[in-house]
């Protein structure tokens, strides 16, 4: 399974949650599969999805699901100690780990070689870390939402991207409708 197939499968679970989605093709895929006002699409700023989501989870009570990638987490590896030490039980970090930088031509990441992001997250102090295979993502994500415990999910999947259009929505529109959805 590749990321877009996972996103299609978990779209019904994500639909009612606040979602912060990683830059590039992941946001394009989610936007094309199931655009919702509860989705915050990152149009730039590689690496900060997990930080934006954590700030959001700490600031308000609704569940927050961050869809991140292995390359982006490696870019902002300092995020994992911050997540571990500022526990928000409404926060789920879903790292779709396809071992590659998908938006830039599928170059391999270190997570696809020797580095285990699940072990890094555990070593950083994250208490609920679940590594799963792509096919199990929906079940693991639903269980994490039901558990109401801060959870880091590392979903191992194949490298590859679906061809989706670039998001042309204005960033202020994305942000404004997202903030209205947060307050609703």
């Amino acid at each position, binding site marked *: 399974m590749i990321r877009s197939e996972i996103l299609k499968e978990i779209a019904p679970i994500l639909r009612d949650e606040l979602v*912060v989605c990683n830059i590039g093709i992941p946001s394009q895929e989610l936007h094309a599969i199931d655009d919702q006002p509860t989705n*915050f699409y*990152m*149009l*730039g*700023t590689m*690496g*900060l*999805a*997990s*930080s*934006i*989501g*954590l*700030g*959001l*989870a*700490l*600031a*308000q009570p609704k569940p927050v699901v961050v869809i991140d990638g292995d390359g982006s987490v490696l870019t*902002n590896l*300092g*995020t994992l*100690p*911050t997540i571990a030490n*500022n526990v928000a039980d409404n926060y789920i970090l879903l790292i779709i780990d396809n071992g590659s930088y998908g938006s830039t031509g599928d170059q391999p990441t270190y997570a696809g070689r020797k580095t285990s992001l699940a072990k890094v997250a555990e070593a950083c102090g994250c208490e609920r870390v679940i590594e799963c295979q792509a096919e199990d993502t929906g079940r693991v994500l639903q269980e994490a939402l039901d558990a109401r415990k801060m959870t880091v999910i590392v979903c191992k999947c194949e490298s590859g991207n679906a061809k989706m259009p670039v998001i042309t929505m204005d*960033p*202020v529109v*994305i*942000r404004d409708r*997202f*903030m209205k959805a*947060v*307050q609703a």
Partner: protein
Amino acid sequence: MSIDTRITDDLVASKIEFVTTVPCKQLAGVIDEIDRRPEIAHVPSNKEDEGMGLCAGAWMGGKRPAIIMQNTALGVTLNTLATLTQFYRMPLPMLISYRGELGEPVACQVEMAVHTKALLAQMHIPTYHFHHQADVAELPKILEFTFMCNKPVAILTDASFWGGY
């Protein structure tokens, strides 16, 4: 009243409830004071761009944020300021320790100090420079301005303002 208490009082009065910090010796007193205030959630970050991500999320979640950092880190935040804070039009008061100014004992700090105002100007970030302790009187208005215009706004605080090292 100490300058640290004064600054923290102003943050609380401006309803800033979420502060992220990367420490600097000059900012140690303010950070301690923020930790003592139940009105403010203090989430230290490991890097300043990470902190700006936290602030963006906190603001979208309904809390007014602020970042406290040193000017030497300005370079690592430029992409975040442009593509997150400015692109999505988000407010962000940046209380910045302006190292490398008069009284600085560490030569290397001057190397980023000479670029600090130029970078902020290039980024079109409204910038205020606190040099005398009395300059702190403008802080409430600067905070009000920041949340009025939804922009990152820099407050540079140099060694003379803090009363030396």
